[in-house]
């Protein structure tokens, strides 16, 4: 039986898509929200570190599975390799209702004003595709606010002198520090840094009909057993469904966007739960499938009028793939700094996010989430035993004497870091898979060295007896912070969408995920993706209410 035509299709139920589905449904549009995965359940995953989002040697519980999903990874020498979701080179995010927002650490950062004006602030970097966003922080500010209040954020930005201006405070008070974070907070003040509590998409007090956080150690990488973590799956998506206007269609893999003779989008083709080909038509389509899969879907949606895929007339789709050049330092302490109050990360400094002399960009620095036992077995200073008695003794002695400070270095985008579709490798359903290739620029590594040195300084100030830095490799970034592959801009020759996420030349096709990011901020990106979900939807709804059907 044919599916009933709807006003809007949203592809992907993560940070951007969940928000878009809710906004459109509340405005009265009929919506189908597509999700390729299933609902994730705490009781099913339990506390299994080996299938979590942080370490996943045995597979990714939060999806996707290794049986139907794989990609091609290209190394620095140009060698291709087929990789599965439980390989870091796959650059997985997640595939379940809520996507990454189910298992994330839930840091709720607003990007700073400079993050939107990266090129203006730092000038051009050789080999880069540096650009400013076509919108400013001030354009997005009301939408950050909407995300914070609609989905729920605990924080107090007034303690952060580098925070961008805001109209309203966070809806929930910030979290109290555990022993490690309190120690680091005092140390930061001692050396003139400006520490403050990290804003979190997690309930510090009951909010949105859900209880407060119970401070478990396993939070990042896991679902929350009491639903205190605020994702799209327990906030905006239920609201969308409750309107009666939105159908959440799970276990459905969209593989093509259909267009008509005038080049407009007419709907999508997908495989349902039983692998049957299905069609869903709509007046407009919003794609929020992640920087990798959104680009792949556009590139795989070829037609006579779009021979290179949708929005790809100028060969921009899939380029400028970014994540973050994560770096930092680890420290060991004489006394135990661990008190088993989770999830760990709670103190940050914004001192080095921008305006570091001689450096392009920077990063916020924060203490790290609690390391689970298997992850910690890989945390060792250089030259340490990798196995045997020395390795076991270290694990036993130092697990509670370890602290880590890390930061997401804002990368300089480059066009050679990209998502393409493979010409030879197809997935379980016979659809060309994503092919990921690229590298970080030297400038990113230089910034990472600078940031790591600051992390080291912070740990020494806290009284560490041993400190070592970690500097990222030069391989392409992506993974859970993937962004940039359908960036917004005013010039169709150097961007994929306009400033409203509307694909250049295809008025009824929109993007509402991290793909839109021109640069990826000196912060974890999820709140910005949510804010863009509101921003893009707001434009669609306003136009719709004025009678625009984007035809």
């Amino acid at each position, binding site marked *: 039986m044919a599916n009933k035509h709807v006003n809007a299709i949203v592809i992907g139920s993560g940070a951007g898509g969940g928000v878009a589905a809710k906004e459109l449904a509340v405005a009265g549009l009929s919506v189908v929200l597509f999700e390729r995965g299933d609902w994730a359940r*705490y*009781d*099913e995953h*339990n*506390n*299994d*570190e*080996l299938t979590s989002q942080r370490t996943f*040697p*045995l*597979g990714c519980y939060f999806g996707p599975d*290794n049986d139907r999903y794989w990609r091609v990874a290209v190394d620095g020498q140009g060698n291709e390799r087929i990789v599965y979701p*439980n390989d870091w080179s796959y650059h997985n995010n997640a595939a379940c209702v809520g996507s990454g927002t189910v298992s994330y650490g839930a840091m709720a950062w607003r990007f700073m004003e400079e993050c939107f004006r990266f090129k203006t602030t730092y000038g051009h970097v050789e080999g880069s595709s540096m650009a400013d966003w076509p919108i400013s922080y001030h354009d997005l500010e009301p939408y950050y606010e909407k995300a914070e209040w609609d989905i729920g954020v605990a924080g107090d930005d007034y303690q952060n002198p580098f925070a961008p201006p805001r109209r309203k405070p966070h809806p929930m008070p910030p979290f109290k520090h555990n022993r490690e974070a309190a120690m680091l907070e005092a140390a930061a003040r001692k050396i003139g840094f400006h520490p403050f509590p990290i804003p979190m998409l997690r309930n510090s007090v*009951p909010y949105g*009909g*859900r*209880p*407060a956080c*119970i*401070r*478990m*150690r*396993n939070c990042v990488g896991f679902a929350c*057993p*009491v*639903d205190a973590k605020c994702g799209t799956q327990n906030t905006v998506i239920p609201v969308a469904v409750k309107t009666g206007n939105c159908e959440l269609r799970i276990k459905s893999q969209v593989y093509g966007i259909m267009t008509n003779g005038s080049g407009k989008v007419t709907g999508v083709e997908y495989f349902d739960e039983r692998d049957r080909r299905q069609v869903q038509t709509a007046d407009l389509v919003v794609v929020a499938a992640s920087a990798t899969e959104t680009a792949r879907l556009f590139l795989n949606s070829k037609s006579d009028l779009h021979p290179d895929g949708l929005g790809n007339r100028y060969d921009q789709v899939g380029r400028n793939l970014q994540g973050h050049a994560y770096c930092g330092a680890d420290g060991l302490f004489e006394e135990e700094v661990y008190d*088993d*109050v*989770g999830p760990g990360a709670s103190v940050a400094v914004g001192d080095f996010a921008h305006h570091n002399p001689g450096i392009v960009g920077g990063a916020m620095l924060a203490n790290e989430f609690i390391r689970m*036992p*298997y992850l*910690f*077995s890989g945390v060792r200073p250089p030259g340490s035993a*990798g*196995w*045997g*008695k020395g*390795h*076991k003794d270290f*694990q*036993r002695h130092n*697990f*509670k004497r370890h602290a880590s400070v890390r930061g997401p270095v804002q990368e300089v985008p480059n066009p050679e870091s990209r998502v393409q579709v493979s010409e030879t490798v197809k997935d379980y359903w016979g659809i060309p898979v994503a092919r990921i290739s690229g590298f970080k620029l030297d400038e990113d590594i230089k910034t990472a060295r600078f940031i790591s040195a600051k992390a080291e300084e912070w740990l020494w100030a806290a009284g560490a007896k041993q400190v070592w830095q970690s500097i990222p490799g030069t391989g392409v970034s992506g993974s859970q912070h993937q962004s940039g592959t359908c960036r917004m801009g005013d010039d169709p020759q150097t961007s994929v969408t306009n400033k409203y996420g509307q694909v250049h030349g295809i008025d009824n096709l929109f993007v509402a995920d991290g793909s839109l990011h021109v640069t990826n901020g000196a912060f974890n990106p999820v709140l910005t993706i949510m804010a863009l979900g509101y921003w893009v939807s707001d434009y669609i709804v306003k136009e719709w209410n004025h009678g625009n059907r984007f035809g």
Partner: protein
Amino acid sequence: MDARSITRRNFIRMSAIGAGCLTIAGCWSSVSSHRYILTNEEAETLDAIADQIIPPDDFSGGREAGVTNFIDRQLSGVYSEHIPMYRACLKGINETGIEVYGKPFGGMDFDTQLEYLRAIESGRYNDGDWDGFTPSSFFNTVRNHCLQGFYGSPRHGGNKNYVSYRMMRLDYPLIIGRNVH
């Protein structure tokens, strides 16, 4: 049950249902002598390797923690691609051991095993014929798998009785003393 009314007791009960086996009896049936892939001889060799990667002290080593059971189970599933390597290299490590030290791996004393494994890790035997597999790569893989089996969740057949968690003084089940309701 209203979301706001989750009490600690209710929560632990819910978790117990979910985990299926947070109680004491019958909990560790997953750590059994039943094998999926490995032969007895292969399992004995792997036990000895596991005790080198994580040696026993006042807490279990890899062998007693069920690391071999963990690896055997994964070889029957997500690690099935590694079966040929395990087959070849568990044989190779014994054959080369007999050539060099006069004994299969499991028959060597602890210090000899240690010396031998360090040599394998460093690539000293990479010229040897372990059915086309590189001894140092095998070592690296088996080391990772042993650490997963020892430090990962017991649901996968290792970390018997949460021995690594107890060693690291992490309480289990979670939540005790953490619930603020």
